[in-house]
Structure formats: C-alpha cells, structure tokens
C-alpha cells in the first residue's frame, strides 16, 4: 500500500513538472532573448559607433540590430525587413541658358541657401555638394533656368558596406581590448613586442575603417551635382509675325525702340 502511494506521489510530481515545464522554459528563454536584444544595440551605440545613429532613423537603427542578431522571437522570418537605404546620389546636368555666368551665380546662391557648397568651378561648369534632401529641388531649379541638353543621375547603395564596416570596427576594437589585457600580463620582452606590433596594426586598421565610414557618411549626407551652364551662342529668334498690343503704351517700349533712333 505504501509502495502504491509512493508511486502515486511520484506520478503526480512528474505530471506537475510536465505541466509547468513550458512556462519554466519560457521564463528561462525570455531573459535569454532580452540579453540578445540588449547586446545588439552596442552595434549602434554612439560611444562605439558614433556614425551609426546619425544616418539611420529609429526604425533603421532597429534594422541594424536586426541584422546583427537573429530574428526577434515571434517575428515572421519571411516578412521583409524594413531598412533605410544609404544611397550616394550623383547627378550630371548640361543646360543651355541666356547667360551662363548669371545662371551659375544664381544657382550657387541657391545651393548655399540649401546648406550646400561649391566643390569646384571652371567657368560656368560647377561641381556642388548639397544635402541629399535638396537633390530633386536642385534638378528642378536647373531645369527652370533654361533648356536641358543632357541629364543623368545615379544612386549608389552603400548600406551593406556601411553596416559591415561598423561590425568590423566593433570586432577590431574588442580584439584590441583583449590585446591590451594580454599586454598587461605579458612578461617577456619578445611577447610584449609582438603584442604591441599587433596593437599598432589593429589601431591602424580601425582608423582606416573609421575613415572609410566617415567618407561614406559624408557622401550619403551630401549629394554631388555637376552642372554645366552653356550660353546660347546666337541671339534669340525674332518673331516673324507680331500682333499689335491693345494697350498702346506697350507698343512704344522695348529693346527695338531703345536701340533704334534714340
């Protein structure tokens, strides 16, 4: 009888354990995911990656985290990841205007108003850098200035390279930290020299990658636009038939009367 009771208790405990099992695992699993999610922001932490936050919005910041960790629990892996693209815009325009120098000067004034700057100028051929948000406005302004002879624009996606650089910089920094620890414990001169050489190499590598990342960030933030203003070589065409204006004074003024018998 005691044996039967003992078996019954054992069976009850096993069943109880089995029923609580999933929730126990659930409680264990949750902190694990939280840790994973908490670890990830280090990728875009301004302290370790000062450029990351500046060129992705909040949503895309999450995308970086998403890229550096596995998909969040409950997320549909087939769902497309919303990602803010990092695009380098370049444009090239050739436009015919009445006065090339004046048109170039006016366009440059607008570029400065938009927060851009002149990169180079050769006569009425300008290369300007302007905020990417003003790229379309710049094209519209140039089109309004005269007759467009040619026009091209490109967008180069550097999202992958930018994110990869961030990850590689993080990894290199961690390696460098470990090497510093090794250096502190090293006792032999030969070991110290080796570690120091590796530290120098790593530091140079990090600086090179950070430089490349800054360059990309600059290229993304400011579009590059080359504009050639070309003056018309011949005077504007003369209208063969002219309708007399109903307001007589209008017929009395004009370049013809000014340049005639004055």
């Amino acid at each position, binding site marked *: 009888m005691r044996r039967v009771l003992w078996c019954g208790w054992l069976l009850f405990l096993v069943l109880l354990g089995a029923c609580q099992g999933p929730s126990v695992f659930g409680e264990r699993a949750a902190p694990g995911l939280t840790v994973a999610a908490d670890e990830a922001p280090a990728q875009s932490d301004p302290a370790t990656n000062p450029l990351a936050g500046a060129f992705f919005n909040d949503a895309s910041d999450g995308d970086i985290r998403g890229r550096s960790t596995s998909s969040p629990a409950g997320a549909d892996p087939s769902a497309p990841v919303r990602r803010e693209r990092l695009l380098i815009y370049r444009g090239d325009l050739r436009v015919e205007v009445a006065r090339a120098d004046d048109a170039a000067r006016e366009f440059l004034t607008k570029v400065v108003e938009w927060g851009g700057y002149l990169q180079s100028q050769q006569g009425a051929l300008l290369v300007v850098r302007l905020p990417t948000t003003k790229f379309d406005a710049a094209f519209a302004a140039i089109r309004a200035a005269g007759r467009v002879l040619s026009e091209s624009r490109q967008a180069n996606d550097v999202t992958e390279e930018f994110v990869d650089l961030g990850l590689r910089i993080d990894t290199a920094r961690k390696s460098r930290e470990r090497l510093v620890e090794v250096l502190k414990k090293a006792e032999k001169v030969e070991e110290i020299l080796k570690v120091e050489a590796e530290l120098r190499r790593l530091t140079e590598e990090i600086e090179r990658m950070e430089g490349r990342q800054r360059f990309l960030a600059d290229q993304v933030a400011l579009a590059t636009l080359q504009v050639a203003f070309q003056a018309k070589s011949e005077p504007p065409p003369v209208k063969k038939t002219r309708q007399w204006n109903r307001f007589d004074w209008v017929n009395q003024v*004009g*370049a013809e009367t000014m340049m005639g018998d004055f």
Partner: protein
Amino acid sequence: MCVLPFLWFATACAAPLTLPADFVQLRDRGEGWRAITSDDARVRVRDLVDPTEGGVEFWAMTLRNDLVDQRGYEEVGNGEVKNQAGAVGRWFEFVANVQGERVSYLAVIWVVPPTLAWLGIGKPSLRVVEFAAKDAVFRARIDAVRAALPTVRG
C-alpha cells in the same frame, strides 16, 4: 503761391533718377528723359498713360507677355523694386534679337498716382524705366543701373 510754379518747373526738369556720372542726359525730344553712355548703354524714363487704371502687376505681366510671346524676347529674370517714394514696382530683364544682334533689356514699371490726387483730379500713370545695350555692355553696367532704381522719383 508765386513760388509754386517755379518749384513745379524745377521738379519737372530734374532728372527722374540718379545715374552714375558717365551717363549723359540727352536733349528732350518729347520722348521722355533719356541718358546715354560712351559705349552706347541707353536709359529712358517715361510716364505713360494708363488707360484702364490697372495695377502694377497687371501692367508688368502685360508687358512681359507681349515681349516674350509676341516679340520673342527671352526672360532672364524678374523681381520687385521700390522707388524713392517707397512704391513697389516690377522689373523684368530680357535678352532680345534686335536686327540680328544680341541685346539685353531691362524694363521697370511703377504705377504713379496723379499729381493732384488729393483733389481727386487726374488718373494714375505708368512710370517706365528702360535700360538697353549690347549684351556685354549691359552686363558691365547693369549693377549701376539697378543701384539707381531706388532713386526713381515717385
């Protein structure tokens, strides 16, 4: 009271705007006030009758449309400018083909109230300033002419 006619005469004879010294005033032929430079830059100021009493915007666009649509001028720019009295006028700058030559042309319009407006006599007129020259001369002189526009009498 006797001084008034002299004041009126003095005002009527005075230049309607202050141009740089190298503009020389031409003899009055009844075609408005005219001045010219040695390199043939020409300025004329006229008061023209406004038969329908339109506003400055109406007249400015009437002139602009006639020059561009009817005569084939190319508009280079436009804007607003105040005269000495603070009245807002409109200016247009064009490039035109005059007898096969490339000529630049500036036209500025103000609507001027009648002299005896306080008596309810007269109609408003249009004060039109024109500046024309061959393209290169025009470009060398345009800044000086623009600087003179705020001195145009109201």
